[in-house]
């Protein structure tokens, strides 16, 4: 079934497309930022820099979960 959007279809389609683009940018920002921070932590870990707690800088949430449960 073809949806009819009437004479103002371009306004409706542009609104939904803009929302999709902005949400995609937000998701991309969060994912790329996470990769970037994790990579920098790994590099620091490889160079022998550790946290005061003695934990590895690259402690992943999984590893953390194991330590607190």
């Amino acid at each position: 079934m073809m949806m009819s959007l009437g004479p103002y279809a371009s306004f409706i389609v542009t609104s939904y497309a803009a929302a999709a683009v902005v949400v995609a940018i937000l998701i991309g920002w969060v994912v790329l930022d996470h990769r970037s921070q994790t990579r920098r932590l790994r590099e620091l870990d490889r160079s022998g820099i550790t946290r005061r707690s003695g934990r590895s800088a690259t402690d992943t949430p999984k590893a953390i979960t194991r330590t607190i449960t």
Partner: protein
Amino acid sequence: MTLIDLANPTRFLALTARVLPWLAAATIALLAIGLYQSAVAPDDYQQGATVKIMFIHVPNAWLSMFVWGVMSIASLGTLVWRHPLADVAAKSAAPIGAAFTFLALLTGSLWGRPMWGTYWEWDARLTSVLILFLMYLGLMALWRAVDDPSRAARAAAVLTLVGAINLPIIKFSVDWWNTLHQPASVMRMGGSALDRSFLIPLLVMAIAFTLLFVTLHLAAMRNEILRRRVRSLQMIQASRIAFSSEMGAGSREGNASKEAGAA
């Protein structure tokens, strides 16, 4: 895990790792249902199909204010309780709130052109939301301008709480002034003025966008904690390098004075 445990960033990271996949799945499912319901919703007898813009515009407009509200509570956490995650929460929410406010302004403008005959009007509702958008950008600039996160957090918290004055102005602008923007039609005394065929898709989309915010916010907070961890480790690295170079310079000076004494 109690609420106080979340003050520990490491435990917070563990929690986000567990809940983020579930939140993301729930967001995708609700967005899919909401988009389907929006697509099959009937045309309005006056607005025609342009009423479909409402299903995007209204959730973003709600969230533009809700996110500032979250940031205001977080700012109280920074200034009053000095909660370690409060400024992380406020800082991470700002870009997401700015994006929702931008979408509210853009979709409102695209809805206004066919309905009002203009993309923009300097009326109280539109102007106060534009001010909110500029305040989001100002806060983001402030956080970027100050290197020390704790100093930036205090200044940003004060600015956020002052900016919260704009929230009731936005909400009640349509009642206090004669505006082109329509008055409240969902949350108002006497119940919603919307027909169920519009109200249900609107509420589903509003919940879906709220879940999207919660998901993105938790993920952005996790990134901010990792960024601060990177920063502190880089400072340790820099101090070690400085210490070892000082030691090297000291031993060279010692050797030089011994050599001078021997001569």
